């Protein structure tokens, strides 16, 4: 009777075998060579990938900021709609997630290509002719695909719902009597937002930021489809070490380990920032 906690034992065993042990293996692989002995070689070799680390962090950072700049106002506007409308809009935000994300990203290729839909539209509107006549240039398309901009666009597109949903779910739960009380006490709309709504929505913001940043920094599909071969990210690097031509799980593990540490540092900083707010808004 008292031992109801024993029901968790199988799960704890499962977690140790299939979550903890694999992570330990990553650490072991990261510090060994193909011969088997201890080595730091994998980390020493990583100097040549500094630019990839930099690019991954930078692009993921920009995508997270853009998601926040779009997602916060959107959640705020949504929360002011009537309950029926709110439900429909939330449904509309989640619906695209049901289409395979590879396909959605692939569809962006059709839109952004040099002979893609946007360039075709601009050409048929005579935009390029006009530009060519005015500036005496000779362009027939705007290069959009295979740029860092396209990669950021893909990240924002795929992960924007992860920013909107947690922020929205926190803002909706804010007690409206708090806002009324503030108004009664003479606060203007700006003050109410700055002193009440924003501080109370911070847990949602923090959770949204992690939920966008982590997949963005580790993606390899978006960069491969929209970034061409030139904008390799950390995810691509890891994938190449495990399933690609450059088979070297030891180096791959070392990169994974470093990425995990970066993610952990980011989360630690975020948690500090949020002063230990509960992260219960995951869903």
């Amino acid at each position, binding site marked *: *009777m008292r031992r109801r*906690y024993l*029901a*968790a034992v*199988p*799960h704890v065993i*499962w*977690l140790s075998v*299939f*979550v*903890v042990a*694999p*992570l330990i*293996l*990553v650490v072991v*692989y990261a510090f060994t060579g193909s011969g088997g002995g201890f080595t730091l070689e994998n980390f020493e070799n990583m100097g040549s990938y500094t630019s990839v680390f930099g690019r991954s962090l930078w692009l993921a950072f920009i995508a997270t900021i853009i998601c926040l700049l*779009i997602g916060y106002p*959107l959640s705020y*506007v*949504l929360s*002011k*709609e009537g309950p029926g409308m709110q*439900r429909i*809009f939330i*449904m*509309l*935000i989640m*619906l*695209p*997630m*049901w289409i*395979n994300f*590879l*396909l959605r*990203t*692939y*569809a*962006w290729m*059709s*839109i952004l290509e040099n*002979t893609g*839909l946007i360039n075709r539209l601009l050409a048929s509107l005579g935009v390029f002719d006009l530009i060519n006549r005015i500036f005496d240039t000779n362009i027939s398309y705007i290069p959009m695909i295979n740029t860092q901009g396209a990669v950021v666009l893909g990240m924002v597109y795929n992960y*924007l719902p992860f920013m909107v949903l947690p922020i929205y779910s926190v803002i909706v739960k804010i007690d409206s009597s708090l806002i009324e009380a503030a108004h009664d006490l003479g606060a203007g709309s700006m003050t109410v937002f700055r002193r009440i709504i924003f501080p109370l929505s911070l847990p949602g913001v923090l959770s949204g930021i*992690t939920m966008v940043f*982590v997949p963005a*920094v*580790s993606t*390899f*599909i978006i960069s491969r489809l929209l970034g061409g071969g030139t904008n390799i990210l950390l*995810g691509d690097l*890891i994938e190449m070490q*495990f399933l690609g031509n450059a088979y070297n*799980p030891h180096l791959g*593990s070392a990169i*994974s380990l470093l*990425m*995990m540490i970066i*993610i952990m540092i980011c989360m630690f900083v975020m948690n500090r920032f949020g002063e230990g707010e509960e992260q219960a808004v*995951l*869903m």
Partner: protein
Amino acid sequence: MRKRSISGRVLMALVFVFLYAPIFVLIVFSFNSTKSRTVWTGFTFDWYLKLFQDSTIMGSLYVTLLVSAIAAVIATVAGTVAAVGIFNMKRRHRNTILALNNIPVINADIITGVSMSLLFISSAAILTKVSLSLSSLLGININLGFKLGFGTLLIAHITFNVPYVILSVLPKLRQLDNNLFEAAQDLGATWIQAFFKVIIPEIRPGIVNGLIIAFTMSVDDFVISYFTAGHVQTLSMTIYAMTKRRITPEINALSTLLFITVLFMLIIINVRQSSQEKKLKKLRSKLS
């Protein structure tokens, strides 16, 4: 006090155009008469017919649905049991287990996938070595080695699904009135009876929610499957292989069908919810 600003409406409209533009392109070109994905050449239903004859696509769709269904059901049962156990733990232990439980949720998919593939590959190698030495020792042929395939794929899916089920069942357990369970036992129910007749019905919304989340995560997953499935192909993996060459419009047709199915399901759920809410409102106004 509800303010509806024009700029808010414009923002919403822009975001929805952004979110639905690629989906619109995808659906429109599923009816295109040639394989081009940027030039409209005429209307056809051919891709929908060809879809059902394409054995690669249908095969991988079958693998996806099978692994998602099995993984979701196992994860839901295991997750519910585990949630009950975790709920009854001392606070300190509970926090440790929950932190462990959160690893697959928070961690990057690629690290989950890569680390599990390392586990599978190295344990397969060890088992092969063990069976080799056993075979020579005993003089019979034993083979304990395995290859990455449906089994490892299923284990991976269960592993990343269970935490989501636990996270959706635990809040319901917290809302549960603890006296209910004891009352049932005082009235003569055994532990098992009380669990199935009292606890389970009370936390059912959380369980159903967990099942839906688990199934969705499984169907949608690409990265973890990619590293753990070996020679088996899920639908996402088939699509990924196609993006390297060229995606056939059959895939557009398939995702159009899936999109319409999900759309209908969501509409039905929403209509049912809002009619239930109306009934509740009526009841309340009658009561007061």
